[in-house]
């Protein structure tokens, strides 16, 4: 199971890469493996605001439709519209080309308590 250092992780298997006030969000290798072949991604609207824990996207595969929860509180800056025509990028490159959206963090306290790579790895082992 691939886990990238230098990023934060949630219990719901989202990853978030924080750079200053911007946060890039996606789902982890574990999540994409469990879902199977992704057939559709419902992207959030640009400018939409979300609190940590709100559902901001839905990733659909042939066997499930899974909510993606906001790991931080903020406003959507940019979405990865390539996913509209190539949803399978989430399977092929979940940490790079398969990113879902980028948000401006409006509440830095909202990502306190997220796991680092080591903690997430441990979490996966204990599941």
């Amino acid at each position: 199971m691939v886990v990238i250092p230098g990023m934060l992780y949630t219990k719901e298997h989202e990853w978030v890469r924080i750079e200053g006030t911007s946060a890039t969000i996606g789902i982890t290798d574990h999540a994409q493996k469990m879902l199977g072949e992704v057939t559709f991604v419902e992207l959030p609207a640009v400018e939409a605001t979300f609190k940590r824990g709100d559902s901001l996207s839905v990733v659909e595969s042939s066997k499930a439709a899974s909510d993606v929860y906001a790991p931080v509180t903020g406003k959507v800056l940019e979405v990865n519209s390539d996913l509209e025509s190539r949803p399978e990028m989430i399977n092929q490159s979940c940490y790079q080309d398969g990113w879902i959206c980028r948000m401006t963090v409006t509440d830095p306290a909202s990502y306190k308590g997220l796991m680092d790579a080591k903690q997430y790895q441990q979490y996966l082992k204990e599941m």
Partner: protein
Amino acid sequence: MPFISNTAGQQQQMLKAMDLSMEDLFSDIPQDVRCPALDLPEGLSEQQVRAKLAAIAEKDSVDLTCFLGGGFYDHFIPAAVYAILSRSEFYTAYTPYQPEVSQGTLQAIYEYQSQICRLTEMEVSNASLYDGGTALYEAMMMALRITGRNTILIDDSVNPIYRVMLHSYTRNLHIDLEQTRCTDGLVDLGQIRKRLNDRTAAVIVQNPNFFGCIDDFSDIAEMAHAKGALLIVSCYPISLGIVKTPGAMGADIATGEGQSMGLPMSFGGPYLGFMASRKEYVRKMPGRIVGQTTDRLGRRAFVLTLQAREQHIRRDKATSNICSNEALCALAAHAYLTLLGKKGLQETAQLCADKASYAYKRLCAIPGVKPHFKAMWFFNEFVMDLPRDSADVIAQLIEKGFAAGFPLSRYYQGMDRSILICVTEKRTKHEIGMLAEALESVL
């Protein structure tokens, strides 16, 4: 292996082997929730049951000459429709739970979906819903999901039975169902313009409306879209042979009652709800959808597709709790449309309009009978005002062998003397003449 229930003797044997009594089997159920002794009458024989049900059915008047509409219509059903429906392969297997094995069923539904798209000029259809009313409810919920808003604008020229249904469904939800009042039988643009705002998820209208009046909602579509709202049009499928389609008007979702396509009126059902929408909304659509694909050998095959929306996968976040469709009824509609063909449907619609026009003129000639609305573009239904209570007149005409029309006072205040009269292609010039004479005689 066929199911054979256990005999009393076999039950006793099993209990003896377990050293239990019948009572013991229910010991986990608390006394206060156990079923009390049921004082049921003795069972009847097949002959007795038949006689009893026949006596109840006798109370229905089935031989009245039908001028009754109001959402459910007496259209001609070709015998071939029944011949196709009654094939046991279709009749008994109503719902494909191992869908890909039932290629014939799926193909029939796929063809039905294609016909609905062509008829309404919309881009995608589902495999059917229960009836026109629940289809309208589902369209409303779809609009709420798509826009994320919580207000619906619905005109009172939409079928009142459907409006009651929408109320029942939304009464305990955080949804604002706002009603606009039609003026002179048509949707009032001024009211729509005033009430439309950025909290409106959709505007719901009907064409032809409950009073039979025809309208073009292209301007409402523009108004709604300008505010980020959707236009939902409930329509009468036979009318689409000559009337402007929801698709041509710019509607986002089209729904309606499919009973007029090959299904008898049957005292309330089973009926057929259809729903079609823009392709971009297909993932928000409830119900089953059949798709066409190829198998691993490259042969054409049909599947139930986009199932991740449905409740057996998406659970409480599903688009709806409907997990079935009206497969047999959809097949009847499919057979009906295929047998009529495009030309046949246009001719049927034209006949309805022409005969209704003729009836309208005949009835207007009766002293005391006047059209209710000034503006008059109608398809096959129209409202007449009588010199006295229309419900009474209708009751008298039943005695004379006519289901003369619908008493509007049942749903509309101040319309006590108004009657909604419908004429389909089945009504003859003779029957229309007889109705006019009978009406004149009771007034």
